[in-house]
């Protein structure tokens, strides 16, 4: 598809883009006002027909306004390519002109949400390293134009050395529905349950704030109180609740995995990975190997049983924005052992570090965790006792202590590290097992911490800061810590390789 498109003069998005922008705007408005709408429609029958007409008119007006806005946004959105810069003009009243030099462009990703899939356009987002402001997304481009744009930027820099014309390479990883089913079944359901509950609490808080301002709290409060009373009296209900929680946890796991990872395909290219996934929102990510700061290979007992792992690629993040960070985390689920090997092999030479001696933190680490968990337990139990003032709660210690002790021991056992000349490997985990691989020269700065208690045991913590987050090695013998410290600095200061 040699460029039949001319990017040297300003061009707009595909006209279908109006529709995409329009739906996005409507979605935004709905998200902000859904509660209000809910209230209006709940008492819909009570509103006189006269007022209903006003409401209809209001809706039509808002929809029209949004449509005009969408058209204006579309009209004012122009981009071109000039002198190795991507130039973008946008804004209706406040005009913004952005120019991004090609060499600053990190990734070009294609994305399709459900509307974009229906009308067959792609959202192209241009990711840059550096300030978070310079992330640009072009909402609607035809596939041909999108690939042409990508190619132009790619050929002007070493982006994707091979041309993107369907070379039909076999994917490194192709997760079908059956595999995905296995993955979901073995997810960390506890974590998913918490996520769901957090979401639910957030939802209720929003609802409560709203009802507070309207003055309906009493009915809601009464409802909750009634239910909690029933709960404490009836064991049966607790049982039901437990089952419900398990079901919810399972469902959340399934929904989460299927939404994000549906039809996951990973292609291994010369200097990049291409990852395609998603059910409603299809995402296509090109991940350059050089941008990967470190990788984490994780599994849990269930996944280990059927021999699957997931890999998390950690890319360089730019600045303090927390929400951005998640986007730059790229997770591939359901990898088999040999696929893991291929991924690792494609990134770095890891055999040295894997064959080197497995070192564990000092006993001090175990003591510290024990101390803190028991302090925590004591606080929790005092708080519980003070609020309920019942001696019976202390019976649960019989159950809690062995579990806690067991957990602490597994946590300590999973903490280890291995070093080689060029790489560092850190293992950790509680229920899950995470193994982090880091090329030492990618470290940004290094920190050593030692409390006076640690000094007495002659141990220290090492914290390696990379562009994609911290890696901690706690409570290792002081001499080892110094060795790692010196070696890391030596490696960083004597390399000519770019860390990104």
């Amino acid at each position, binding site marked *: 598809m040699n460029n039949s498109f001319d990017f040297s003069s300003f061009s707009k998005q595909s006209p279908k883009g109006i529709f995409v922008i329009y739906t996005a705007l409507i979605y935004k408005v709905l998200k902000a006002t859904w509660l209000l709408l809910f209230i209006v429609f709940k008492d819909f029958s009570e509103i006189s027909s006269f007022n209903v007409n006003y409401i209809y008119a209001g809706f039509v007006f808002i929809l029209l306004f949004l449509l005009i806005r969408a058209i204006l946004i579309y009209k004012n959105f122009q981009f071109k390519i000039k002198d190795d810069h991507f130039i973008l003009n946008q804004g209706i009243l406040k005009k913004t002109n952005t120019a991004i030099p090609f060499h600053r462009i990190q990734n070009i990703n294609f994305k399709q949400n459900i509307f974009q899939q229906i009308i067959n356009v792609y959202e192209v987002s241009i990711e840059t390293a550096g300030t978070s402001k310079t992330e640009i997304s072009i909402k609607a481009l035809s596939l041909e134009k999108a690939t042409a744009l990508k190619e132009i930027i790619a050929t002007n820099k070493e982006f994707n050395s091979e041309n993107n014309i369907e070379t039909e390479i076999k994917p490194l990883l192709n997760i079908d529905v059956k595999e995905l089913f296995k993955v979901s079944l073995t997810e960390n359901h506890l974590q998913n349950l918490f996520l769901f509950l957090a979401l639910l609490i957030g939802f209720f808080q929003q609802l409560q704030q709203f009802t507070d301002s309207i003055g309906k709290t009493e009915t809601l409060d009464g409802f909750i109180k009634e239910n909690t009373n029933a709960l404490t009296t009836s064991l049966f209900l607790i049982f039901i609740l437990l089952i419900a929680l398990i079901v919810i946890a399972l469902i959340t796991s399934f929904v989460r995995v299927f939404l994000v990872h549906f039809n996951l395909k990973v292609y291994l290219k010369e200097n990049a990975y291409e990852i395609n996934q998603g059910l409603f929102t299809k995402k296509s990510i090109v991940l350059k190997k050089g941008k990967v700061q470190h990788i984490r290979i994780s599994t849990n007992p269930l996944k280990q049983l059927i021999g699957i792992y997931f890999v998390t690629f950690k890319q360089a993040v730019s600045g303090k924005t927390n929400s951005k960070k998640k986007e730059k985390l790229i997770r591939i689920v359901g990898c088999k052992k040999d696929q893991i090997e291929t991924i690792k092999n494609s990134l770095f030479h890891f055999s040295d570090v894997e064959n080197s001696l497995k070192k564990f933190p000092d006993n001090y680490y175990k003591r510290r965790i024990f101390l803190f968990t028991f302090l925590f337990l004591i606080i929790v139990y005092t708080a519980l006792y003070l609020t309920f003032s019942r001696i019976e709660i202390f019976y649960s210690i019989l159950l809690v202590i062995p579990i806690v002790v067991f957990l602490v021991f597994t946590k300590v056992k999973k903490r280890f590290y291995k070093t080689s000349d060029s790489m560092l490997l850190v293992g950790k985990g509680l229920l899950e097992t995470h193994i982090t691989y880091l090329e030492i020269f990618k470290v940004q*700065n290094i920190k050593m911490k030692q409390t006076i208690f640690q000094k007495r045991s002659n141990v220290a913590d090492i914290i390696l*800061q990379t562009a994609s987050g911290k890696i901690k090695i706690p409570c290792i013998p002081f001499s080892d810590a110094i060795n790692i410290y010196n070696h890391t*600095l030596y490696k960083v200061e004597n390399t000519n390789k770019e860390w990104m």
Partner: protein
Amino acid sequence: MTNYFKNDLVSELPDITKIEFKKIDKSYFKVILINFFLVIGLFLAGLIVLHQFVFPDYLNEYILYLYLLFTFLFLLIFIFEKMSFSKRKYALREKDISYKEGLIVKKLTTVPFSRIQHVETDEKPFSRLFGLSSLSVYTAGDSSDDLVIKGIKKETALQIKEFISIKINE
């Protein structure tokens, strides 16, 4: 000027334990003291207001102990500040900059020049009174706790900044 910062460590594996750290400027302790007394003043004022206007009589019987406790607490913090002040040290080497601090929790941070994104010096009002600056070094990624050296002479800070800038652009 570069000679001033040169560290004659050219061994293959530079040893962090063998470098000589410089203490930060002594007059920075005065800055700490000013800040410290400002905070005390606020707390003390609060306590006096509570004593005079808010507390009921039965509480005011113990007010002397409260003041004593207050004094004791701040004495403790003062001693802690005094002792930990001498632990604040920095060092420059051919290829990196280090800073250490901490009395109870000792921290040592090193940033290689090749990873520095930019360097900043700034002067807070009280520091300016004593001609002091602080030097901040930023690296890529979550740059929340990169290296900051507070309380060095303004000229020194600017020299270090210059030195690092040259090193980065090499």
